[in-house]
Structures are given as C-alpha cells and as structure tokens.
C-alpha cells in the first residue's frame, strides 16, 4: 500500500515540476469535462424550467386539439393534419361532461400591437374569463376581464407584463391606456402577474394578450376555435376526465380526428425532445474527451521515453513489470483526474454565473460521471505507454542514455 502511496506522491511531484506541461496535457480533459458537465447542467436546467412552467399552470389542465398531436409519447411526425375545427357546439357538449370544471375555448393567432409609434408582435389568446382561473393568471395592475365583458363583446384586453413594459415603459402605466391590435382600438384593462421564463421552454406567457373570444371574432370570422381547454375537477382523476371528454367528443368526431392531452403527456413529449437534443450535444462534447485522452497518451509516451533510464534503474533494484505498469497508469490517471477536477471546477464557476439567468445546475451524477469518465480515460490511454515501459528489457533500459 505504501508503494502505491509513494507512486501517487511521486506522480504529483512530477506534475509540480512540470506545471506547464501538466496543464497543457490535461487541457483536453479540462475542456472535455467542462463542455460535457455544462451541457448536462443546461439539460437539467431546461427540464426544471419546463417542469416549473407546467407546474405553475396547474396539472389538471386538459387540452382538446384537432388531429393527432402526440404519438407514443412524442410529437407525431404527421402533425395535426386534421380538417376539423371546433365550434361552440363542442364547447356546450363539453360543458355537460361531469368531470369538467371549466371549459375554455381558445382562439389564437399571432398579431401586431401598437400604441402609435412602436409595433410589437404578440400572441393573442381569445377566450372566456375562465382562462384566468384555469391557467392561474392574476392581474398585477388593473383587472382581468369578466364574464359580462365576454358577453358584451367589450374591446378590453389583459396583457402580459413583458409586452406591457415593452409598449408602455412600465407595467403600471399600461392600465387604462388605448392600444391598437391589428388596427382595431382596444383598452388595456389589466396587466397580468409575471409567469416567468420564456425563450427556451415553451411559449413566452408574459408576452401574451388575452381578450374575450367574442371580441376576438373580429380576427376570426368563421367562429371556430383553435383548441378547447378543460380544467377537470380536483377530486376526479385526470384519466377519468380524459375518458369522459373523449366519449363526449366521439359523438361528433372520429377517434383520430382530435387529441385529448393532459399536462403530463405534453410535458413528457417536450422533455423527450430536449432530452434527445441534449444527448446528442453531450455525445459531441464527449468526442473532445477522447481527443484529450489522446493528448495524455501522447505525453505519456514522451514521459516513458524520457525516463527509460529511470525505469531500468527501478527494474534493476527489484521493480516488477507490474510495478512499472502501475506507476505509469497511475500517473496517467492522476493527470486525467486532475484535468477532470479542473474542468469540474470551471464548469461550477460558469454554472454559478449562468444561474442568474437560467436554472442550470450540476448534480451529483454529473460529478461522478466527470470523475469516472476521466479516470477511465486515464486508464485506457495510459495503458499502452505503461505497457511499453513495463516491457522494456531491464538491461537495455539501464544502458540507455
């Protein structure tokens, strides 16, 4: 055991003597581990972000959409190529479903909003007043629109905080102001609380514009709905609610003409896409680890050549082939782990910086993976140079200059 301790100690003494070379040699591993760990941290952060977004919307949200959106847990490649469009009859029918607490029709499209000079793009959601309850949306300033606003076809809108700040400078100032939506005049009734995020995960909810679906018919003359959201009653299982909805819808449509999707399914599908993307990126980053390993192998061959005499002396003094083999493998592993630790440290620093903007994080598995992979690389790429050292004939080695 003291033998191993001695070898490890002398390996590190060697590194401190050759600081520059040690650093350059392990740089490949540093970069490899750094990129793999950062990418995994991003993947984890993305997963957490998407999860949080869906959690904030509530889990008992069921979407009814035309066509087959999901197939086998992922987005269907054929997409929602369905000719059917929902209308008010479907809404009425779903309102009779026992497990449905709220039935919310949705009209959506991309629109341009302006207040005279600046024009901004936004996503319009035309719906009933229930959408605010179903999606956990509350007004931060002013008010959300009400049932009677919907009935009266009032030209009122509630807008997300981001778009409010963009158009009016501050969120507060937006309340009560006039706004042009596709050249029609509307009044901002309220600014919603921030839902956070946007960008990577899904839709940027804070840039949405909500208006009564009755009013939105100006932009939607055929009175059809893009989707219907059902919020099921809390005491009824999602599966039961989905089954009841399906049964109700099948009175009018064929099974393949529409999809009934709950939050978990949608979340799973989105996650599986990002997980795949992340795996591909991590795999590409892993290539740099192999390159780093080759760098270590290269320098280990140089080390062996430089130290042939030392190897000969050690063999003459009683070192076995296996002793020499281990000496060089340990050096290569130490070099590789050193690189792994540096990469991990750098990744930690970068993740701390990123965390201001994005919930990326390094978990225990990444640490174990980084250290495990770098030791394995140390062994794999160290074993050939070490074998070369061990197989030297003692007499040739000691006579070399």
């Amino acid at each position, binding site marked *: 055991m*003291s*033998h191993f301790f*001695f070898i490890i100690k*002398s390996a590190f*003494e*060697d590194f401190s*003597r050759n600081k520059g070379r040690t650093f350059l040699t392990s740089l490949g591993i540093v970069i490899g581990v750094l990129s793999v760990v950062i990418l995994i941290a991003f993947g984890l952060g993305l997963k957490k972000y998407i999860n949080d977004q869906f959690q904030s919307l509530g889990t008992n949200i069921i979407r009814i959409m035309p066509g087959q959106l999901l197939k086998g847990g992922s987005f269907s490649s054929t997409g929602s190529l369905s000719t059917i469009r929902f209308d008010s009859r479907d809404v009425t029918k779903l309102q009779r479903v026992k497990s449905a607490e709220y039935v919310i029709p949705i009209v959506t499209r991309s629109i341009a909003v302006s207040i005279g000079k600046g024009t901004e793009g936004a996503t319009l959601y035309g719906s009933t007043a229930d959408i605010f309850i179903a999606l956990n949306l509350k007004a931060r300033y002013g008010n959300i629109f009400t049932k009677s606003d919907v009935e009266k076809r009032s030209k009122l809108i509630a807008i997300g905080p981001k778009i409010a700040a963009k158009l009016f400078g501050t969120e507060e100032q937006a309340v009560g102001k006039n706004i042009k939506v596709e050249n029609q005049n509307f009044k901002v009734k309220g600014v919603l609380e921030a839902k956070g995020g946007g960008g990577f995960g899904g839709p940027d909810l804070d840039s949405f514009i909500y208006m009564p679906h009755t009013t939105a018919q100006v932009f939607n003359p055929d009175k059809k709905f893009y989707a219907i959201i059902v919020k099921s009653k809390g005491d009824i299982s999602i599966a039961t609610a989905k089954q009841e909805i399906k049964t109700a819808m099948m009175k009018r449509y064929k099974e393949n003409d529409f999809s009934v999707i709950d939050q978990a399914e949608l979340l799973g599908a989105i996650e599986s896409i990002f997980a795949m993307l992340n795996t591909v990126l991590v795999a590409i980053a892993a290539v740099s680890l192999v390159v780093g390993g080759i760098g270590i192998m290269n320098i280990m061959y140089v080390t062996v050549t430089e130290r042939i*005499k*030392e190897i*000969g*002396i*050690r*063999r*003459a*003094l*009683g*070192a*076995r*082939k*296996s*002793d020499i083999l281990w000496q060089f493998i340990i050096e290569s592993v130490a070099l590789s782990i050193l690189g792994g630790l540096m990469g991990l440290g750098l990744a930690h620093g970068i993740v701390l910086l990123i965390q201001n903007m994005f919930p990326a994080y390094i978990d225990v598995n990444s640490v174990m993976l980084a250290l495990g992979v770098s030791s394995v690389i140390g062994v794999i790429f160290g074993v050939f140079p070490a074998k070369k050292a061990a197989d030297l*004939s*003692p*007499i040739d080695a*000691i006579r070399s200059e």
Partner: protein
Amino acid sequence: MIKLQNVQKSYKLDEDIVFNALKDVNLQIKQGEFTSIVGPSGSGKSTLMHIIGLLDQPTSGSVFINGKEVSKLKDDELSSLRNTFVGFVFQQFNLINKLTVLENILIPTIYTRSRLSYDPVEKARYLLERFGLEMKERSFPNKISGGQQQKVAIARALIMNPHLILADEPTGNLDTKSGTEILKLLHELHEKEKITVVIVTHDPNIAATTRRKIEIKDGEIQ
C-alpha cells in the same frame, strides 16, 4: 552461491553477423568471497556482470543461484531476486535525480514483497551516518559530489541486506581519492559484514586488491 555453466551470450548484429560476447563461461562464486572480474573494454566483463546480476539472460548455458536454475524463473521471481539477493553499484551511480538521497536509498524497499524486519528509513539513516552523509539526506543526487553519490548508491545496494554486492567499475567516474575511499568501503563491508563482493574493472591495480581475480578476454575466462 552462484554458478555459471557453459554460459554463452551472443548478439545478432546484422542478418548474418553474430557477436559472441561470452563463450562457454564456467564460473563459481562462493559465499563470502571478494572477487574481481578484470579485463579490457569489450572483453565481455559487463555482459558477465549483467548475467550474474540477473539483469540479462544467457543465450545458452545455465546460471544457478543457490542451486536454483535462473532460466526456469519467471520475470517476477527474477525481479524479487534482484530486489533481495543482489545489490548493484554502477559506474554511472544510477541514482534518480528527482528523488532525494534518502528516497533513492529507499527505492528497493518499496518494491519488496516481504515484510522487512527493520524500519527501512531508520536503516537508511544509519547507513548515511556511517558513510558520513547524514547532512545530505534531503539533498538531490546532482547536488553532491561523485564520491558522495557512489556512497549513496552503496547505501542503496545495502538497504535490503543483500547476499551479494555487484560493483561495475565503481571507481570509474571518480577521482583517485574518492575511488580509494569507495574501494576501502567495499573491503570494509566484506570484512565486517561478510558480504560477498564482485567488482568488475578494467584497472589491474584495483583487481590486485582482491583476493580472487577472474581475468576475461574476448569473452573467455583466462
């Protein structure tokens, strides 16, 4: 203790040129002897020493150590014998420059598979003190004189309590004064501790100080 029987060593220099470094050498070294192997350079004396020291194997013939035939031993067993049975002293000292004097002396002890009956560090310090090098324990080999380096090499050769000290031109790289000192030390070890010593040299004056002298020329014992 050591017996060489019809030992031959040849090197293939080219396709069909074979150089015979040793030709049919028969030789026996008994325990407690002080022997010199003397001959001009190129006579095969170094090859002979490498074979006696188990660093090299003969092309044909047999080497017996305490009755055991060396060619039948595995590489690990040969390593163990080099570790415990022989102590080498080289002309070039062959110390490892990045290790301290003390660490150099301790190298054989880290490769031993048997439990030592003594504390190796204590023994190394005792040897350093005995050779007057107690102040140099933490020095590096390239920071001390040749004579001191050779003394460190002798201390390293003694750390495992070997049966045999094999010295290959031990004074070859030293000035006369240091050389005389090293020779005196080897004689002292032989007399006081009954260690078997074999010195390989080209210098007849050194060979003259040993009780037994084996002369070798053109790979043959005269």
